[in-house]
């Protein structure tokens, strides 16, 4: 059973409506509309989701530390957004395709991206880390909103080829102000593209509060573009999983795109180069710490009578393994060859670039002979 668009859209006329299955204290709330979408999530599945979140939080912390140690040039932390990213990524099928921004490390992790593939771009060693076709995830996008159009184009093709694959586009609250994201909504609706717009409203676009981009829930944008929009508690991994499954399912069935606003919070700085103290208070942070996505799932699992020592030990072990892999991965990243600066500009021979490359090789050769000038 799936809620009709009318119902889903209906939610939006009551802005404060937020799909929440798991509250901040771990209380499970029945929801006839979305419970069916996680009927298969048993205790083991809950433990898996918990482990996923513990692992990616640890990976994120490790990467942040590596940046502080000078091993990475920059790192955009996902801390606080674990449920939004894990819940949505767990809803994907293998043949779906992800078009993300720069902060979806948890999504990449679940798509099988290796630590060295994840870090190389932030280390400044490579233009990008992984083969998009192997992971079914495009390389991260830094131009705000641009990937949303790519996700729609991919989905248009999926529909024309009559597959049941869908694409998902991750972007932030700030991105909703860019023309590209709005045009993506227009194209997606016009072509009934099987695409899910997954907006992580983490409250901030660097120093700008979401209120500067929009005076009301971003999910309300969807209706005007002819698709259902849903606001979900982005720190509730169950709700995110359910809502994303619902959206992907209807997309696969040819019912077109949907827009999900996952309301969450960026607990850390925008990037390691940012100082949030300049634009937000600790109270903000404190309030959101109360709504931690991991704590609440931990409480639910505990309430189910599971052996929490085992659960925690298992999660910690997985996190330790991942952290070790990450550090090992870092050392596995090769420094690029100077002449590789010319690689892959074109897929076919290019007379101008070849001449430039050849001349630069001669230039570098001088030093091998002379050494320092």
């Amino acid at each position, binding site marked *: 059973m799936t809620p009709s668009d009318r119902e889903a859209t209906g939610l939006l006329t009551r802005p404060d409506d937020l799909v929440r299955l798991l509250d901040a204290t771990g209380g499970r709330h029945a929801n006839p509309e979305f419970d069916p979408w996680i009927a298969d999530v048993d205790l083991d599945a809950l433990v898996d989701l918990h482990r996923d979140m513990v692992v990616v939080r640890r990976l994120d912390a490790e990467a942040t530390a590596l940046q502080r140690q000078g091993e990475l040039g920059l790192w955009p932390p996902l801390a606080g957004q674990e449920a939004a990213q894990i819940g949505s990524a767990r809803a994907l099928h293998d043949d779906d395709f992800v078009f993300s921004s720069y902060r979806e490390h948890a999504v990449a992790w679940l798509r099988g991206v290796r630590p060295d593939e994840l870090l190389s771009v932030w280390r400044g060693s490579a233009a990008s880390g992984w083969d998009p076709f192997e992971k079914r995830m495009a*390389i991260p996008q830094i131009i705000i909103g641009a990937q949303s159009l790519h996700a729609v184009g991919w989905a248009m093709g*999926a529909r024309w080829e009559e597959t049941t694959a869908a694409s998902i586009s991750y972007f932030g609250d700030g991105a909703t102000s860019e023309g590209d994201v709005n045009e993506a909504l227009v194209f997606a609706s016009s072509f009934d593209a099987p695409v899910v717009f997954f907006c992580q409203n983490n409250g901030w676009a660097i120093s700008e509060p979401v209120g500067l981009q929009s005076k009301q829930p971003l999910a309300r944008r969807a209706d005007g573009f002819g698709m259902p929009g849903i606001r979900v508690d982005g720190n509730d991994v169950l709700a995110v999983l359910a809502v994303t499954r619902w959206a992907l399912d209807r997309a696969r069935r040819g019912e077109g795109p949907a827009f999900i606003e996952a309301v969450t919070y960026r607990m850390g700085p925008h990037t390691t180069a940012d100082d949030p103290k300049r634009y937000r208070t600790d109270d903000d942070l404190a309030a959101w710490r109360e709504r931690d996505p991991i704590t609440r799932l931990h409480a639910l699992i505990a309430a189910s009578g599971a052996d929490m020592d085992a659960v925690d030990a298992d999660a910690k072990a997985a996190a330790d393994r991942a952290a070790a892999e990450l550090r090992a991965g870092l050392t596995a990243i090769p420094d690029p060859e100077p002449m590789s600066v010319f690689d892959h500009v*074109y897929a076919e021979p290019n007379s*101008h670039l070849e001449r430039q490359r050849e001349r630069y090789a001669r230039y570098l050769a001088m030093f091998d002979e002379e050494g320092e000038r």
Partner: protein
Amino acid sequence: MTTITFGKAINEGLRRALAEDDKVVLMGEDIGTLGGVFRITDGLKAEFGEHRVVDTPLSEAGIVGTAVGLAYRGFRPVVEIQFDGFVYPSFDQIVAQVAKLHYRSRGTVRMPIVVRIPFGGGIGAAEHHSESPEAYFTHTAGLRVVACSNPADAYVMIQQAIASDDPVIFLEPKRRYHVKGEVDLDANLADARPMGVATTVATGDDVTLVTYGALVQVAKDAATAAAEEGVSIEVIDLRSLAPVDYATIEASVRRTGRLVVAHEAGEQGGVGAEIAASITERCFEYLEVAPVRVTGHDIPYPPAKLEQYHLPDLDRILDGVDRAMGRPNSLSDISEVDA
């Protein structure tokens, strides 16, 4: 060989590409039901269906951006920008995505996208309908930029552009759309001249005249007119603006020692600047005089009744040739000092 118009030649080239590879899709505003405002895609939607020839919403960034996503899926999108002046809303998707994705993805993601742009003036159009934006693209690493000047080339080059695994900005001189020419519709592409190679359309010994698009015909006429005055002009149709086929230009300039480059686009930072600078670097010792540029003025495209005073025409090109030849010309009486 059949005789068809320039526009029809592109239409036939697109038809053949659509027929030979079902990954080829055409996208754009009014290209389906209407067949395009210039009718270049006339009949193609009816023949190949709405999923191959796609009328899109009115959004250039949307067209190019979704084409990128389709390329990610293995399609070979051919997008039409209705007029040159409307390509700018898609500039970010072209420059930051289409041009850079193969590099950014370390060769894993190919962008075999063709952006068709009817370009240039001479049709008495309203503002934004007569632009020559080519230099914005030739300065953008990752793109190939070509301009065709006649039906036969148009038919072959559009297919070569579609077959290219690199993104191609495909410039169509709109004022030539109705000109007819001989085209071999059964031509074997394998035997065709690569789109990266220039064509010497008139041979001469005194001066090398390089141009592209609509001005190629004007340049040929100039060569004919100059011949009567005893000046022998070699006319080179550039065809590819990025990369430029310098081998052909150099060989000619080594013989003539004189170079004139002509285009409708403004002079400052135009394609002519790059060719003048490169040829000076490559064969300085062969040059009798500084390369001469004959271009549109560095002004926004003027109203229709003034375009004749903006576009290089036969006389302005001949004046440029006279400057290169040291014959009496518009600047004869000023030394470069006070110029």
